């Protein structure tokens, strides 16, 4: 099959991928990633930045020879990474001063930098102060954020349980945990420095993941209603739903990811704002896993949970493939109609590649008397 026709099928929402059948490999892959995250967290932990751990600050008068660039040079000469250093000029009654904060440094580095800074400025080294700085992200901020998240999880579970059902709430929360864990894993494995912006990135991922899952679940719910009167397995329902939303999911992911990729490429590589780089990477990973988990984790989980219901347990094994699945996309709610659809699959298969309108005409629209919910 050529790429062009694959795109055409995607564009028309006619892909027939058996997502449900691939649930075990998908769970395995996700499990491996999550395990790697947990191992990295246990062994190395997160590389917390100055806002969380505190560090050291030097402060001295700004002179003609001691400006921000000069301070950067001094720091780099002493082997300190300046991408996350906080460099500030202070303007007060006693003139202009310069303050630089970085993560914790051993004593000899503190003294060396102090001397080097004083030398650059042409002043006595006592005039440059060295002091330990505490974290600006207080314990109370973390506690409050965790409490807020717990409240949010409870509320969002209740909302999804009310709007859809509790099984979907469970699956959505699981998918979200999966996404956040993997994004945190990227930080733990690559030892990126965690800043308050990173925390915001994780929260964004959390929100995006839930948002995406809810959009997919809305389709699943619609299909559950559509097939309510026929004996249709959950595997089929989630497959049909996932294929129907595939075009939307890819499109949305692409349009959400493009600004972030632009942040990464234009902002950080071309324009050199390196502090945007790690933030953008975390967001990108979170968005990709967010889309992935909605289709490969959340919906199969719903199917697995719902297969325990007697109605679906009886037909749990029956998962249509290929053209048979494609036939389910039509509004076929009765067995006879399904049968007719399955019989006409051969003619359909050939027409699919030729043109859409003739394909449509092989199944004249049913009279518009659909059951309203």
């Amino acid at each position, binding site marked *: 099959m050529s790429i062009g026709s694959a795109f055409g099928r995607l*564009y028309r*929402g006619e892909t027939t991928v058996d997502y449900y059948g691939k649930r075990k490999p998908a769970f395995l892959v996700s499990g491996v990633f999550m395990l790697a995250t947990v191992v990295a967290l246990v062994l190395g932990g997160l590389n917390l930045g100055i806002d969380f751990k*505190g560090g050291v600050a030097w402060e001295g008068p700004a002179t003609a020879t001691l400006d921000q660039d000069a301070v950067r040079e001094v720091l780099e000469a002493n082997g300190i990474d300046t991408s996350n250093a906080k460099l*500030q*000029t*202070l303007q*007060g009654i*006693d003139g202009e001063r310069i*303050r630089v904060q970085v993560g914790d440094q051993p004593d000899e580095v503190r003294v060396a930098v102090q001397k080097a800074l004083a030398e650059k400025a042409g002043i006595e080294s006592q005039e440059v*102060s060295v002091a330990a*700085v*505490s*974290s600006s992200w*207080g*314990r*109370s*901020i973390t506690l*409050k*954020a965790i409490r*807020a998240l717990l*409240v*949010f999880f409870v509320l*969002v579970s209740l*909302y*999804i349980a009310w709007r859809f059902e509790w099984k979907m709430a469970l699956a959505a929360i699981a998918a979200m945990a999966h996404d956040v864990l993997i994004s945190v894993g990227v930080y733990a494995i690559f030892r990126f420095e965690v800043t308050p*912006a990173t*925390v*915001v990135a994780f*929260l*964004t991922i959390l*929100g995006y993941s*839930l*948002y995406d899952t809810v*959009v997919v679940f*809305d*389709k699943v719910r619609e299909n559950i209603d559509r097939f309510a009167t026929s004996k249709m397995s959950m595997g089929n329902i989630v497959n049909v739903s996932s294929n129907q939303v595939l*075009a*939307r999911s890819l*499109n*949305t992911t692409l*349009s*959400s990811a*493009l*600004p*972030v*990729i*632009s*942040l990464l490429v*234009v902002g950080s590589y071309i*324009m050199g*704002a390196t*502090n*945007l780089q790690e933030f*953008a990477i975390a*967001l990108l990973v979170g*968005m990709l896993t967010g889309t992935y988990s909605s289709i490969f984790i959340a919906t199969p989980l719903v199917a697995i949970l719902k297969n325990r219901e007697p109605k679906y347990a009886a037909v749990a094994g029956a998962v249509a493939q290929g053209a048979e699945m494609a036939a389910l996309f039509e509004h076929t709610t009765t067995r006879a109609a399904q049968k007719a659809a399955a019989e006409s699959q051969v003619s359909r298969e050939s027409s699919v590649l030729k043109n859409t*309108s003739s394909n*449509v005409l092989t199944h*004249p*629209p049913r009279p518009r008397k659909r059951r309203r919910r």
Partner: protein
Amino acid sequence: MKRRLFASLIGIVLVAAVAIGFTVGSGDRPSLGLDLQGGASITLQPEGEYDALALDVAVEIIRSRVDAIGVAEPEIIRQGDTVVVNLPGVKDQQRALDIVGRTGDLQLRPVLQSGSVDPTGGTGDTGTGNTDPVDTTVPEEGGPGEARGARPMVDTTVPTTDTTAPTTDTTVAATDTTVPAPGVEPIDATVDEESAGVTTANDLPEGSEVLLGRDGFAYLVGPVAATGLVFENNASANIQGSSWSVVVQLRGGAEGEDIWNALTSRCFSRDTTCPTAQVAIVLDGEVISAPVVQEAVFTGGEVQITGDFTEQDARDLAKILEFGAVPVKFEVSQVQTVSPTLGSDSLRAAIISGLVGLALVFLLMLAYYRFVAVIVFVGLAVSISLQFSIITYLSKTNGLALSLSGIAGIIVSIGIAVDSYIVFFERLKDELASGRSLRNSAQRSFEGAWRTVLAADTVSFLAAAVLWWLTVGSVRGFAFFLGLATLADVVIVWFFTRPAMLLLARSKFMATRSMFGIKQPKTGEVAP
């Protein structure tokens, strides 16, 4: 129907145009956070004796106060022994000082007279007024405590130690050392604020002033007798029997117990400087509570305040006593303006990459949905105009500051805004593919898409609302922008996308064209 769609479409575009016009016209810009714009930096130098632990406690207390003011994303750090408070966007240094200086000055002042501001508020007499709250302070180890007079007006000119207000004994029942608290004689007429001042105007000690109480009463209080420093930072709210009380430890020695006992013995004896026997607990010029002193000398080192508290009352009071009592005294040693930590290049990088991203998204939409993408583009423009105006307005009035993470949040929200269109268009494609007319499909697919958008946006908004209510600092800033973007999305989908698409579907323009490359059947072919 058609007219209403037109009205909605024109209305929202007009609102957005006027809003952005005003915002740009007035020359206001959203103020930016510490990382992007800088702000004011206040250095607090500790005075007297302190240790590292006390400094840590002090930083936490200052943080909770500054956060409570609502300045967006302040930064409070300890640098060596000094405490540095950085406030974003505050260019006016005096204002910055006001904010830090105003916070949480806890004073203890003798009450000279109290009265109701409301002329009808205090007419009940104490004998039957058993719904009125009574505060009683009792040291845990023995001895009578102190009780605040019953709410109805207290006539302070006649010391009435022998009368017992019937309501007071229940509030101290839980302690072993129950003593009927001395009540105070009610007077028939309530004294309002002015007359309270007049009656004692002649012999007012210097530093006296009338302060409003949280309970709605006015208090004429004497000069500051003690500060929150007499208490340890360990106030707690406890339940005793059925009523709530607050217990706080006194600091030992001259700094704590001595000052406190000097004040309470004066009040207990109903000295002229404290004729009501009440001590007002004043925070930032507001009387939080004014319990009546029940004991001259507090030997146990512990103060208990009881009364008709609700749990919330007790917890609030405990928090005030705890936070009001900063264990270290600070002096403002420096006020400086501080430059941004990130520099203008990262702001420019973020904005340019945001615009590039926006352009890429538009190209994607154009390639995928063809000319319908124009609706996406105009919709985004309307949405961005509205959000920009709101952000600018709030940063002017409420000190909202846009930090780098906020900007990044907005860039991300582009994706979520575009998603609403994608959900809509994909449904429309499905409907068209199953052979319906464009007009019919547009209506049906909007209904489906609206449900989806509403469900998904509710989840996002829930996240934003909970995070905004319950957190502080940069998390709160993020929550605000997420919530705003979500609300804007819902508004745009209903007031802009819906009329724009439905009208386009009916237009003559579409009669000769196909949408999304799907030919629509001629009208006659569709089943009626």
